[in-house]
C-alpha cells in the first residue's frame, strides 16, 4: 500500500466525513416506495382525461378502522340505473399511500343490473381511498374515505 506523504489527521477526518455523506445518500433512496398525492392525481387524470369529477352518486364501503391492512373488504356501489342509455361504464379505485396509486379498474355493462363491486384490498398505511365511476354519458362521479390502518401491508419482510 502506498502511503500519502501529507496523510494528516485532518485529511483523514475529511475523507471519513466524505464517506459518511456518500453512505447517507443510498439510505435516502432505499426508503420504501410510496405513492404521493401527485401520483394519485396523475393516476386519476389518466382515467378522467381532465374531465371534471363531481362528488356524489358513488358509495364507498370500507371499515373506517382496519386492524390488518393485508385484507380490507371494500364495496363500491354507484347510485345510477343500469339501462342501455344510462349506465355505469367503469369503476376505478385509487389510494394515496400504497407504492402504486391504482387499486383496481372494474368494467361493467348495461346488463350488470346493479353497479356494485366488492373485493378485498391491501393498505400500506392509514390513508385516503378514492373511487371514481365513469357513466355512459361520459361524466365522472367520485367518493373518498379516510381509513385508519393499524397493521400495514406490503412492508413486512419475507423470511
Amino acid at each position, binding site marked *: 500500500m502506498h502511503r500519502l506523504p501529507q496523510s494528516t489527521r485532518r485529511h483523514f477526518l475529511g475523507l471519513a466525513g466524505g464517506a459518511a455523506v456518500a453512505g447517507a445518500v443510498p439510505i435516502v433512496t432505499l426508503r*420504501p*416506495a410510496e405513492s404521493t398525492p401527485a401520483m394519485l392525481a396523475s393516476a386519476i387524470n389518466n382515467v378522467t382525461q381532465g374531465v371534471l369529477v363531481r362528488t356524489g352518486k358513488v358509495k364507498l364501503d370500507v371499515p373506517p378502522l382496519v386492524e390488518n391492512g*393485508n*385484507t*380490507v373488504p371494500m364495496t363500491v356501489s354507484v347510485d345510477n340505473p*343500469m339501462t342501455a342509455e344510462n349506465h355505469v361504464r367503469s369503476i376505478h379505485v385509487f*389510494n394515496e399511500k*400504497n*407504492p*402504486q396509486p*391504482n*387499486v*383496481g*379498474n*372494474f*368494467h*361493467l*355493462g348495461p*346488463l*350488470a*343490473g*346493479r*353497479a*356494485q*363491486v*366488492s*373485493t*378485498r*384490498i*391491501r*393498505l400500506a398505511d392509514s390513508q385516503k381511498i378514492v373511487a371514481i365511476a365513469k357513466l355512459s354519458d361520459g361524466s365522472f362521479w367520485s367518493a373518498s374515505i379516510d381509513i385508519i390502518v393499524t397493521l400495514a*401491508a*406490503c*412492508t*413486512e*419482510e*419475507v*423470511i
Partner: protein
Amino acid sequence: MPSALINVPAKAKRGDIIEIKTLMSHIMETGYRHMASGEIVPRDIITSFTCRYNGSEIFRADLFPAIAANPFIAFFTTATASGKFEFEWIGDNGFSETASASITVE
C-alpha cells in the same frame, strides 16, 4: 386441484339481478417486499379477470398489487337466458386459469 371458488345461483327468474362471487387462490406477491437478504421478491400477481355470459363479456377487472392475496371479486348481472358463465384469470409468469358455472333461467 380446483383453485377457484365460484358462487352463482343455480336458478333464477328471467330479468332477476343476481350476484356472482369469485375467489381465486393466488399469492398476489406485490413486488414491494424484501427478503431478509435485502433482495426484492419479484412481483407475481393476477392482472386481469374476465367474466363471460354465454360468450359475451359482462364484467372485466384490471387488478393491481393493492388487491389482497386470493383475490375475491363479487359483482352483479341480469339473468337473461339459461347458459354458462365463463371466468378467466390472467396474471404474471404465464398464470392463466379458467372456471365455469351454469345457470337455469325460467
